[in-house]
């Protein structure tokens, strides 16, 4: 009898949760349509046909199995970047250095890939991945030092480290590790044993995509089901509360930055080992910044990152097709992305305000 009522209660709370998720999804759908509508108005104003443009965009992203596979390949880096942003945000660390950590991780993986030859794949690939993760993580060490010893907010140092990383890797491929045979400034090619196995013939999609989804699930488990994740979230929500409870605040900050850097470093490794096959200067059009936005859209939830990353991957892949088919510039896509992020931010902000207002009224 008692367990029956317990079951009923649980069912009710499930139903509530579903209603909640449903309302959230509806919200997002609305925001998405509004963003596309604003994009359409701009396209219309520039004298082009918005419907044709969006059809071309959609077709380019999802129009065939292979196109869809390529979109999923783009999604890999978007997922990892979004997870990297979310982990830091959850600890209330604004890691503006994802882009730099991406470059360093990518180069570290590339170096292991082109320096060592004759290793079997099952050794070489993990080694490259490890190098990418360590590269991204270690690039945050100066920021951690500044934060812990001088109490400098990470915002500025992480941002500055981006420029150092991008220029430093440019130097590395221009001089010490230059491959004269490369079409652009780039490193030597990775050994074949360091390349990620592709999943489908005709598309660049590789096992990196599966790894990225695994990472998202692990990140979810880590943040919500482990002691360390609990500590990081509590520090992020109220560090004074955490300190008074005896939760190690500084350790949480260190972990947030290194795990965030390591995750995006892994993303860099995936791009080099899966897509490019060598390190190319300026290879990222801003994946680190996309990660930042994806985390915002997903409200720092690792599972929410998956659809947001797929959307970003689709836009990235479809934009090119749209431009070549209809002449509508890719910049329109950037605008739709921007509107979307802005709308989500405003929505979160309004919800926060409403809650605060309710508290005031009560």
């Amino acid at each position, binding site marked *: 009898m008692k367990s029956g009522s317990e079951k009923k209660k649980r069912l009710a709370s499930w139903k509530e949760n579903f209603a909640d998720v449903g309302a959230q999804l509806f919200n997002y759908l609305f925001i998405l349509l509004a963003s596309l509508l604003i994009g359409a108005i701009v396209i219309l104003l520039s004298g082009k046909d918005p419907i044709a443009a969006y059809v071309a965009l959609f077709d380019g992203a999802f129009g065939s199995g292979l196109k869809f596979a390529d979109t999923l390949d783009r999604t890999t880096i978007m997922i990892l970047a979004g997870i990297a942003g979310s982990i830091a945000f959850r600890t209330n660390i604004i890691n503006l250095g994802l882009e730099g950590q991406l470059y360093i991780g990518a180069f570290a993986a590339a170096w292991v890939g082109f320096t060592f030859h004759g290793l079997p794949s099952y050794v070489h690939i993990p080694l490259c991945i490890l190098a990418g993760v360590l590269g991204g993580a270690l690039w945050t060490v100066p920021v951690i030092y500044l934060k812990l010893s001088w109490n400098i907010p990470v915002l500025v140092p992480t941002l500055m480290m981006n420029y150092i990383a991008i220029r430093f890797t440019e130097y590395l491929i221009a001089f010490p590790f230059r491959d004269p045979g490369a079409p652009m400034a780039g490193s030597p090619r990775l050994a074949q044993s360091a390349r990620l196995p592709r999943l489908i013939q005709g598309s660049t999609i590789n096992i990196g995509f599966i790894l990225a989804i695994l990472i998202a699930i692990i990140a979810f488990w880590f943040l919500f089901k*482990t002691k360390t994740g609990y500590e990081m979230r509590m520090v992020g929500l109220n560090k004074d*509360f955490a300190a008074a409870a005896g939760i190690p605040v500084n350790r949480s900050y260190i972990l947030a930055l290194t795990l965030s850097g390591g995750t995006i470093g892994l993303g860099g490794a995936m791009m080099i080992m899966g897509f490019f096959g060598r390190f190319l200067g300026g290879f990222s059009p801003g994946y680190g910044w996309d990660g930042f936005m994806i985390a915002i859209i997903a409200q720092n939830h690792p599972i929410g990152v998956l659809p947001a990353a797929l959307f970003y991957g689709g836009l990235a892949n479809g934009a090119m097709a749209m431009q070549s088919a209809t002449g509508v510039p890719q910049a329109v896509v950037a605008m739709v992305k921007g509107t979307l992020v802005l709308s989500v931010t405003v929505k979160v902000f309004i919800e926060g305000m409403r809650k605060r207002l309710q508290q005031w009224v009560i």
Partner: protein
Amino acid sequence: MPEALSVKSITKTFPNVVANDNVSLFVKKGTIRAIVGENGAGKTTLMNILYGLYQPDSGQIFIKGEEVKLSNPRDAIARGVGMVHQHFKLVPSYTLAQNIALGVEPKKGIFVNQDRLNQSVQAIAQKYGFEINEKEVTLDVSVGEQQRAEILKALYRGVDILILDEPTAVLTDMETKELFVMLRNLVEQGITILFISHKLREVLEISDDISVMRNGKLIGTVNRDETDECQLAEMMVGRETLGGRMRKGAEIGDCILHVEGLSVLDNRDLSAVKDVDLELFAGEILGGAGVDGNGQEEFVEAILGLRPIVSGKIRIDGQEIQDLTTREIREAGVAYIPSDRYRSGVAVDAVVWENMISGEYYSPPLSKGMSLVLPEIQDLSKKLIDSFQVMTPGPNAKTGTLSGGNIQRVIAGRELGLEKAKVVIASQPTRGIDIAGAEAIRKMLINYANRGAAVFLISADLDEVLALSDRIVVFYEGKVFDAGYYDEGIRQRVGKLMTSGEDCIDEIR
């Protein structure tokens, strides 16, 4: 002498509280009037009414002989009444001059005329004998100078009645002396000053007349030359009969918490706790009385390992803890109910269970290896919610949706529910919560002491301290004075120590 300001029969009630009860007051032009009283006596409410922030339920306000209705601070300023709040309202990144003239800047077209702005501010400062570097950025200057800017901000708007809400609370001794010189200057130029304080020594030094408030009533007004600290303290604390005593006989055991020569700095690196010795025994409730801001917070934070100490030793059961981490100190058996529950008691955006396990999550049965055992956590949270009667839909509710009293029950459940603590440090545990909630928290503390733990109850609410404590110490200017065990004379002794520290101590004994 002509009257600057008077009020007749002002009454102001808030839900459950009569903040001002039929208060009448008459202030002469060109004098300094101090309003003294304990926390919650109604001083600030009265001043907020005079500044137009609150409207009284009944009663009249006269400014310069004319009856006025003040519906907002702009009305008050137009009538010549300005107020400097305890917490400054300055834009940190602006210069002092920009802050002083904020909103009434001299204009050139649509732009602010910076030169005229600086000149006009300097002119006002000179007129009243204020030293100020008006071009300095506010966040770079001392608190004393920020306060000068706040006062000038009022004077810049042509105010001649100035209300200062505890102006010395944030100042060093040196800055206080400087402030008093400036206030004297102002009075000589015909400005009238109302000054809220609970520091009786300062009040006697600076004011002409002193009005004492208690429980919303104006007890009386005395001339500075015809009174002394001990009379004022008596007026503030009163001779109430000791009603509502909740504590009955205690079995005192061994010394559990032993503090020796503890010195601590505050956030501004000023000495906040000065060479304090304290002993806390098993089974007793030690009351820590004192006006807020006399070192209580810093003392508690030092014990918890949240604030570095300058010197001294802290022992629990003989074990030195002053160099341990907060977690190690808590594992040594310290429970802590912080004074600001929203700042350091809970994370309001976390759910209830997340706030309930913060002291236990890392050990079995709540965790296993690196994972949390969520079913165990849910069970424990439900148990604590039941036994501490937290009104919440369940462990998964957002903590911020709970009332203050229920949030305090969440904290009490976490800190006291597992019955592990040897020392309970409860800082303002019932501040701002409903009566039933306060009563419940007090009962929990008593139960805890009866079980043999040592309870240190720090509260600015004297009645609460008197109702619960076996023994009382008083925080005054960073020092701790022992008022002895509970008896008929304790209210008087505590009251005097609270307002004047060691000055009265010989008299009391």
